[in-house]
């Protein structure tokens, strides 16, 4: 079982105000007054390609990123992800086995120390971006901190959306910002250094 730790957001410029970020688009409508998610274009493309390739099976993985704050705006920058290619998947479910979590731990510790496990992503081939009952239970048990999200992609409708928590209430799915960065390696380094373990 994933052990979640509550984190404080680190001060960082909101990407739309920061010079290094370019070509910021939105997939879906951005919900008001809640966590904003800035997904790297690489991660976004990876999830979409993976979901289309394995459709009708579900696919999934874990997002790694940083939990930030700029004045009163809380947001996540997600520059990377670890895909789950272990375990079993069906058109209506996917299981993340313990070996996968072990692998996430290794990748996280060796390559991206300082980033946070933001939450899982998975696909819903043909049944929308709303979390299912199982998803809600999983999110409630393992990813219920303010910086946690659950990202869902439907390859049939080509829609992406994430759900997050606000005052203990699971919010309706919101769209994400998708960004490109002028120096992506520098960005990842900055984000890792911003939260020394």
């Amino acid at each position: 079982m994933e052990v979640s730790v509550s984190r404080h957001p680190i001060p960082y410029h909101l990407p739309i105000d920061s010079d290094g970020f370019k070509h910021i688009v939105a997939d879906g409508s951005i919900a008001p007054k809640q966590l904003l998610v800035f997904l790297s274009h690489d991660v976004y493309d990876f999830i979409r390609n993976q979901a289309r390739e394995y459709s009708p099976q579900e696919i999934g993985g874990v997002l790694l990123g940083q939990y930030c704050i700029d004045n009163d705006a809380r947001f996540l920058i997600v520059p990377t992800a670890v895909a789950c290619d272990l375990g079993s998947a069906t058109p209506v479910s996917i299981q993340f086995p313990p070996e996968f979590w072990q692998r996430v731990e290794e990748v996280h510790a060796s390559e991206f120390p300082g980033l946070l496990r933001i939450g899982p992503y998975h696909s819903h081939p043909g049944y929308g971006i709303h979390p299912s009952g199982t998803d809600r239970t999983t999110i409630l048990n393992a990813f219920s901190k303010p910086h946690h999200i659950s990202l869902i992609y439907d390859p049939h409708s080509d829609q992406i959306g994430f759900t997050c928590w606000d005052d203990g209430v699971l919010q309706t799915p919101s769209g994400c910002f998708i960004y490109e960065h002028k120096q992506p390696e520098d960005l990842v380094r900055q984000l890792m250094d911003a939260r020394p373990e």
Partner: protein
Amino acid sequence: MAEAPQIFVRTSDGKQFHSWASPTAETPIAKLLESLLDEYPLSQHGPIDLIDESSGKLIDPEVSAGTVANRILAVRTRYVSDALGQLDTLRVQEAPAVDYFHEPGSSTIALNLWYPGLVRIDSLGGSKLVVKGSHRAMLTLPKDFPEKPPHILWLSPIFHPNLSADNEVWPMRYNWSDAPSVLTLVTALIDTVVGLTIHLGRRFGVRCHQVQNSRASNWYRRNRKAVASLAKRTRYRLDGPLIGRPLESTNVHWNVKGALTGGDPTVFLSRRAVRGILEIGIRNSGWLIGKQGRRGHAPWIFVERIVPLPPHCNSEAPANAVGVLRGGQGQNETPPTNDQLRPLDVHLQDGEPVLRFGSSLNPLTGYLVEVEVVLPTNPTLQSDGVLRQPITVRGPYPVQARQLSQVHEPKTSPEGARSIVRLHTKELEPPVCMYCGNLCFMGEEWGACVECGFIMHGECLHQLEGCPNTDCPRTALDPRSSERLSETGQYPFKIEGW
């Protein structure tokens, strides 16, 4: 069964005929109008109308083909439908302060305007000037419209140098040949009503034909500053309070049009601003009304709505203007006031808005637009079940008033209890708001001025920011009333409720 009629339609240039075989006699003429769209594309001609050549009357699109069989119809472009389309645009931008009613097949349009204008009330105790927020006028489109301008008949009482009840009126400084558009004509009329553009005539000169009420002219001459101050406060006001950047402070959903570049100014367009830019920008210029701010070094601008700018308008920029829309003929002209206070410059290119900020020649790569959100069917996923809009509806405007009237319509009383019910109804008759003229119903917030006792709705007070009685120390004509209200956030009224 009636035979399917054949209908002949003369083209707009009068040189040719279209023939249309109606499927049945009952088929509405709207179907004929649809089929004419290929010949008269909406983007090129605007909505079209059909006229009965023999009588010159407008054909109601809902009448059946059978009723106009054996008659020759003529296509009219830029006529009533086009004028109604322009009024729709204005209604959306000025909502809820502009409304109209049009009887299909007629070329007259009843216009309702909810802006502050003065009315003189004569009573035994003397006469009193009161700020009224409800006015009516009638537009009549002549046969040769838009070559000839509409006739405007002012219907409601008003104390104004250039307007008077039951008389034909015309907005000040408006030349129809410069802008043959109902949109800007009504905008100019609103500016005249509120006193932004008035003609007072010469003090001791020969009476000018434009001055319809010399007494009002004298009064306006003495109180010009106060009237202008009230006009600016109410004409260009923002509907919704905006505390910070809309992304963090409003309850609306946003989407990105184009692609944002980090560090660039962030522009937020409300849904009605987008609609206004597209619909007004093809004809006219306008003010972008909204708010601007800065987060760190990054500026942001929110555009709430567009106020059309009558041609050759030399009035100063409104305080809430954050930029200009350069539309119609003015696209290549220098914007009226593209200065640091109003840094946003918008124009249409290939039907799409192009936004520039400040002195930059390069357009912004992207901007955020308000998204209409459909409530999810699963109620458990909705945090509070309320679809929030950035724009709050103010005042008991016509729709609300109609709904309230329906709710409060007295029910038929049971037999034998008629007199008691009548007495009961009489006792509970709601008072009339001195500003909007509608009743103050149960459950609404309303009250009486602590100084003069004038009754008005809380929402009307919020809109007017003072008492409608011009003799009252808290009169809306005194800007200090507005300042007191914004400082304390409290009504200077005793709120009664019902």
